[in-house]
C-alpha cells in the first residue's frame, strides 16, 4: 500500500446529554462515534457506508476538524491534528476540505458563485494573492465543467447538479490533498448523479486527490471506492477492498445491507436471497453490550452479549490469503455471497 496520508485510530465522539436548567447535570451521552480506526493511502478512495445514525457524518466532521473528538487521534501525514489550534490548525484545514450533501443549503443564496468559490481565499490569504483570485475562480469553474462566464450569478440560477459542481469547486480552491465528501450525490437526480461521479473521478487523477467518500448508497460507493468500510452504531464493523466487501462479506450486518439493496435486474429477483433484518437500529445513547449488532443479528449467541468483537481478520480466515481474509468485527464471521455474480450479456455502455 502507498504511504498513508490519514491515519485514524481510536476515534471517539460523544455528545453529552444534559438535564436541568440551573444545575445542569450530564445524564448520558450520544455515542455518535465510538472507536473508529482506518487509514487512507495517498491517491486512494475510501468509501464509508452505513445507515442514518451510524456516525458516518460525524466522522466526516471530525476529519475536517469541524468537531473535536472526545478521544483518539487523526494523523495527517504523521502529525496528530486533533490537538492543534490557531495557525497550525488552519494550515491543516487547508489540506482537508469537505464537499457537502445538500447543494441547496450549503451555498449562501446571497453570495455570487465567484464569492462562494473565492471565499476560502479570504480565510487563507496566503493561498492566492488578491489580484489573482478572480482568475483562479474562473479556472476552477472551468475545471468542474461550468462556464467561467457564470462567475457573477447566484446559486438559485443553477440546477442541483450544477450547484454540486460549485460546492466541489469551492472544495478544490485551496488545492487540498484530501477531500471528504459527505453524501455528495444523494440529493441529485439519477441522470445527473453519473455526471458528478465522473467529475469526482476525473478530478482525483488530475489533482492527485485522496477521497473519503461517505454515502448510504452501496452501489455508488462500490463504483468509486478502492476500499470500503461499513459502519454500524458508531463503529466500523467490516473493512476491506471493494471486492472483499461486496463479493465476500463476512460480517452479518454487511451481508444484510447488501442483500437489501434493490438490483436493477428483474431476472435476479427470484434467485436472490434476501436477508430482512428485524427491528430498528438501537439508540446511540444506549448501545447494547458486547457486539452492538447482536439485537438484530440472526447469528447472535450468548458470547455476543459478553464480548465486544474486535475489528480484525477473523480467526478462521487468518491462515488463508483469499478475499475473505479481511477485517471483520464478528465472533461468528463466515463468508456468504449475497450479491449475485455479474450477469452475462448485460447491455453495453451507453447508447449506440
Amino acid at each position, binding site marked *: 500500500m502507498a504511504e498513508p496520508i490519514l491515519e485514524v485510530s481510536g476515534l471517539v465522539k460523544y455528545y453529552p446529554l444534559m438535564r436541568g436548567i440551573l444545575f445542569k447535570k450530564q445524564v448520558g451521552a450520544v455515542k455518535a462515534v465510538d472507536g473508529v480506526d482506518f487509514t487512507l493511502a495517498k491517491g486512494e478512495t475510501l468509501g464509508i457506508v452505513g*445507515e*442514518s445514525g451510524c456516525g458516518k457524518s460525524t466522522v466526516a466532521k471530525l476529519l475536517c476538524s469541524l468537531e473535536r473528538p472526545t478521544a483518539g487521534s487523526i494523523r495527517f501525514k504523521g502529525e496528530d491534528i486533533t490537538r492543534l489550534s490557531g495557525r497550525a490548525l488552519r494550515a491543516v484545514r487547508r489540506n482537508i476540505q469537505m464537499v457537502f450533501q445538500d447543494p441547496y443549503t450549503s451555498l449562501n443564496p446571497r453570495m455570487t458563485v465567484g464569492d462562494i468559490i473565492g471565499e476560502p481565499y479570504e480565510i487563507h490569504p496566503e493561498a492566492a494573492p488578491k489580484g489573482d483570485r478572480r482568475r483562479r475562480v474562473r479556472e476552477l469553474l472551468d475545471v468542474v465543467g461550468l462556464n467561467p462566464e457564470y462567475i457573477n450569478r447566484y446559486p438559485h440560477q443553477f*440546477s442541483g*447538479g*450544477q450547484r454540486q459542481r460549485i460546492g466541489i469547486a469551492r472544495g478544490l480552491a485551496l488545492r487540498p490533498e484530501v477531500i471528504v465528501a459527505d453524501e455528495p450525490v444523494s440529493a441529485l*437526480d*439519477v*441522470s*445527473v*448523479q*453519473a*455526471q458528478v*461521479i*465522473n467529475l469526482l*473521478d476525473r478530478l482525483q487523477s488530475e489533482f492527485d486527490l485522496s477521497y473519503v467518500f461517505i454515502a*448510504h448508497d*452501496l*452501489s*455508488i460507493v*462500490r*463504483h*468509486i471506492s478502492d476500499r470500503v468500510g461499513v459502519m454500524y452504531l458508531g463503529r466500523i464493523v467490516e473493512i476491506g477492498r*471493494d*471486492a472483499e466487501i*461486496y463479493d465476500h462479506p463476512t460480517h452479518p450486518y454487511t451481508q*444484510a*445491507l*447488501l*442483500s*437489501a*439493496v*434493490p*438490483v*436493477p*435486474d*428483474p*431476472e*435476479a*429477483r427470484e434467485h436472490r436471497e*434476501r436477508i*430482512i*433484518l428485524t427491528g*430498528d*437500529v438501537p439508540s446511540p445513547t444506549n448501545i447494547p453490550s458486547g457486539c452492538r449488532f447482536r439485537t438484530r443479528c440472526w447469528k447472535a449467541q450468548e458470547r455476543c452479549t459478553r464480548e465486544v468483537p474486535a475489528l480484525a481478520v477473523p480467526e478462521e480466515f487468518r491462515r488463508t490469503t483469499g478475499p475473505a481474509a479481511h477485517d471483520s468485527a464478528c465472533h461468528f464471521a463466515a463468508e456468504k455471497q449475497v*450479491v*449475485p*455474480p*455479474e*450477469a452475462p450479456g*448485460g*447491455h*453495453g*455502455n*451507453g*447508447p*449506440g
Partner: protein
Amino acid sequence: MLLEVRDLQVEFRTRDGVAKAVNGVSYGVDAGETLAVLGESGSGKSVTAQAVMGILDMPPGRITGGEILFRGKDVLKLKEEERRRIRGAGMAMIFQDALSALNPVLSVGDQLGEMFVVHRGMSKKAARAKAIELMERVRIPGAAQRVGDYPHQFSGGMRQRIMIAMALALEPALIIADEPTTALDVTVQAQVMDLLADLQREYHMGLILITHDLGVVADVADRIAVMYAGKIVESAPVRDIYKAPAHPYTRGLLDSIPRLDQKGQELYAIKGLPPNLMNIPPGCAFHPRCPMAQDVCRTDVPPLYEVSEDRGSACHFWRECLHG
C-alpha cells in the same frame, strides 16, 4: 381495467408563465397489478398521481384535458362530495415523507381511527379498536400499547408503516405510493417494500408505485412507465425494459446507475439537464440530450409507437435503440 388515465394534461399557471407539467399521459392498472411510474424530478410523475387522487392544488394547477376512469367512471366529472367518497375507500395514497404527512399533534390512534369515524360512522371506541387492528396488520410491535403515541415517537420505518395502515384502512381497490421508501435506510426500505407487496397480494389491490429508483422497480413491478417532461416515453413489462430498452432515455438511465454487482469504469452520463417545463423543446422533448437525435426529432413529436403488443416507445428510432 381498475384505473385508466387517458391523455391527461395538467399545467401550472405561475408568475413567470405556464408550466406544462403533464402533457398527455395515458396509463392503466388492473386489480392485483403493480405499475411503476419512473421519472426524475419534474417529470410529472407525482402531478399525475395527485390528479388521479384529486388532491392537486388548484389553482395554480389546472387539468386542461383528458379523462381519469376509475372503474369505468370519469372521476373528473364527479362532484367534490362524490370524489371524497372514492378517496380513502376506493383509492388511497402513501406519501414519501411520513413525518410531514402525519399530523404531529394527534396520536396515531386518533388519526387512524378518524378514517372509520368519518367514512364509516363508527364510535370513537370502535374506531380505536380498528386502529389497533390495523397497526397489527402492518406489523407494528406492541400495537395496543403504542396506539396513543404521537408520530415523532416512532422511527422512520414505523411511521411509514402507519402511513400504509392509514391507506389500507378502508380497504381501497387502488393504492398510489409516491416514493414510499425514498426517505428510509436500505434495510428498512426492504422491510417496508416487502410489507407493501404482501398486503397487495392479500387484498388483490392495484398498486401504482411512483419512484426514481430503477432497483426498487425491478424488485416489485409488473409493468413500468417511464416519464420525461410530462410524457410517457416508454411503457413495457418490467422484464423487457431491463433487457432491451426501446427509448434512448430509458437506456441512458439504466447505463448511468452504478451497480452493486459490477465495478464499472466511467459511468455513462446523460448529457445536459432536464428541460424547463415552461419551455419544453419542440419535437421530441428529449432531443437536446439524446445521442441518437436526427433532424426529424427536432421538429416532429414522436407518438407512442407500438413496439409489441404490450409495449410502446415514444422514439422515432425505437427500432435502432432496441437493437443497437
